[in-house]
């Protein structure tokens, strides 16, 4: 700024390069600065405020202190069920997704014929609109008569009750989620194709077998991809909404066994008009997401391997 005032005596007043850059930078970024404030920062703060109030979206919010949070933990069995279901889903579906995506990518990476065809087939389900996905799943998993029961019928059984009974609904959803791991497969495959061949050559010289090459070369180099997959899929699992909502009509049927956190939050906000209560749920989710991601980031130095540091 000092240089700007020093350049004032010039005959034609010109802005310094730095000032001009700042002005241009702000002008170009202005849509997002506005968007950030209006669509992100303000709503985040407002939601924090609502979470301490009783608010139906019409009348002014009534300050109630920690009442919403207390009620969530002490007087709401549906909330506890939603937490349990969501954590259950995350705990089982994420490791399975990592194993399957990694495994399929490994096989695709072996120089085989028709690699692109396989890759395309595995990726396509992730493009299907959730409505179509959920509907066809409900249809296939119709107990006793849907397509899924055909192999069971061949053995004279009629198969499990799938989405229609409390014990089976969640395992079925975990299974179904494996169908949409195409993006992860592509990420792992891209990672595998970046592994420098000379690392394998060096391992060959040392007489390493397939398993030790896998353990000491492939896995370490792919840990950044696993890390990325882990972070994004934790966030994804905690926000899982459309598919179970469409499948059950938003009821969490049967017996709340598919009541996910975001479904219960949505119901509180827009069905029961408990906007304050739902905001408290949103903030708890936010805090929980932060803690989990922080733990993953902290743990990264123990298991994520960055070749050559940067880049």
């Amino acid at each position, binding site marked *: 700024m000092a240089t700007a005032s020093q350049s004032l005596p010039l005959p034609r007043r010109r802005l310094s390069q730095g000032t001009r850059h700042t002005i241009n930078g702000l002008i170009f970024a202005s849509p997002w600065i506005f968007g950030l404030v209006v669509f992100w920062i303000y709503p985040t703060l407002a939601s924090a405020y609502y979470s301490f109030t009783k608010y139906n979206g019409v009348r002014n919010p009534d300050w109630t202190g920690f009442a919403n949070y207390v009620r969530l933990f002490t007087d709401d069995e549906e909330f506890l069920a939603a937490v349990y279901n969501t954590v259950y889903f995350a705990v089982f579906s994420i490791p399975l997704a990592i194993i399957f995506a990694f495994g399929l990518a490994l096989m695709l990476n072996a120089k085989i014929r028709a690699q692109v065809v396989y890759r395309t087939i595995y990726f396509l389900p992730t493009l299907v609109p959730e409505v179509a996905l959920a*509907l066809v799943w409900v249809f296939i998993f119709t107990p006793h008569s849907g397509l899924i029961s055909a192999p069971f019928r061949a053995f004279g059984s009629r198969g499990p009750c799938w989405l229609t009974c409390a014990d089976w609904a969640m395992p079925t959803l975990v299974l179904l989620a494996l169908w949409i791991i195409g993006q992860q497969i592509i990420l792992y495959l891209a990672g595998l194709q970046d592994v420098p061949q000379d690392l394998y050559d060096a391992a060959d010289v040392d007489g390493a077998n397939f398993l030790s090459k896998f353990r000491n070369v492939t896995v370490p180099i792919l840990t950044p991809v696993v890390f990325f997959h882990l972070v994004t899929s934790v966030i994804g699992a905690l926000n899982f909404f459309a598919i179970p909502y469409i499948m059950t009509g938003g009821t969490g049927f049967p017996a709340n066994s598919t009541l996910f956190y975001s479904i219960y939050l949505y119901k509180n906000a827009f069905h029961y008009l408990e906007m304050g209560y739902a905001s408290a749920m949103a903030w708890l989710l936010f805090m929980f997401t932060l803690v989990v991601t922080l733990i993953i980031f902290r743990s990264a130095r123990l298991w994520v391997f960055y070749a050559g540091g940067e880049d």
Partner: protein
Amino acid sequence: MAVKTQQAAQEFAHNHARRLMFKRIRGVIRSTLIHASLIPAAFVFMLPFMWMLSTSLKPDVQFYAYPPILIPSPLQWSNYPDAVTFITFFLYMRNTLTIAILATIGVLLSSSLVAYSLARIPWAGRNLLFILTVATLMLPFQVTMIPLFIVFKNLGWVNSWLPLIVPHWFGGALYIFLLRQFFMTIPMELSEAARIDGANELKIYYSIILPLSKPALATVAIFEFIARWRDYIGPLIYLSDQEQYTLSLGIYEYQSQYGAEWGLLMAASVMITLPIILLFFFLQKTFVQGIALTGIKG
């Protein structure tokens, strides 16, 4: 001596050939095993599509037939016109396209401008803005969902397309991030030379940076268009007038009112899935690059 050498050489050649043969056999076994696991996997991944397509051409009586019927005969094409009529498919498609196209134009324009500022103009606050941008990616949408609804309600925008379009005209965090990464790979000398020639930033933006970034811009456009085409929760929150429904919401509402008319529902499902799959096949490279791009800096 010479005989001995010849013998050794022969022996070596023989062993070498054997080793090569073993290697080749091992290779064949290996690739057979790999295909033996990849093919069933591909079948499982394809099955729901095939079932969707097959059911969309079936009469009611064959839905739950055992053994299952994959290729119905006769083909019941009438499920398609029925779906179009009873679900008012074209009305919903017009609505969905309007929202998706307007949102895509907005997000492209705004995100590229912002990314240009973050990547190509050296100014003091840009790192802070970039950190905030990335931070919003971690924020669950539920946190902002309720206050935004209240804001749009007070503006009188609820039950219109505006809440589904307007926010996208102010930039999308993921796309800003993506484009910034891409813009940074373009040599700075290009901008500096243009500045010396007296070009202003807007000119550099549209005559140098944008033309060089077509692949990244295409990725953003496709991702956003598909995201809006598939979007379910947005329309669910904001649209209550049937005239305004998008395809996803319309098909869901139809199903929840009239239940399991699978032939018709699957025909509709095929019709909302097909455009995306076609888009994918035409632009496959852009897709795969885009996915790799979002995953680069884990």
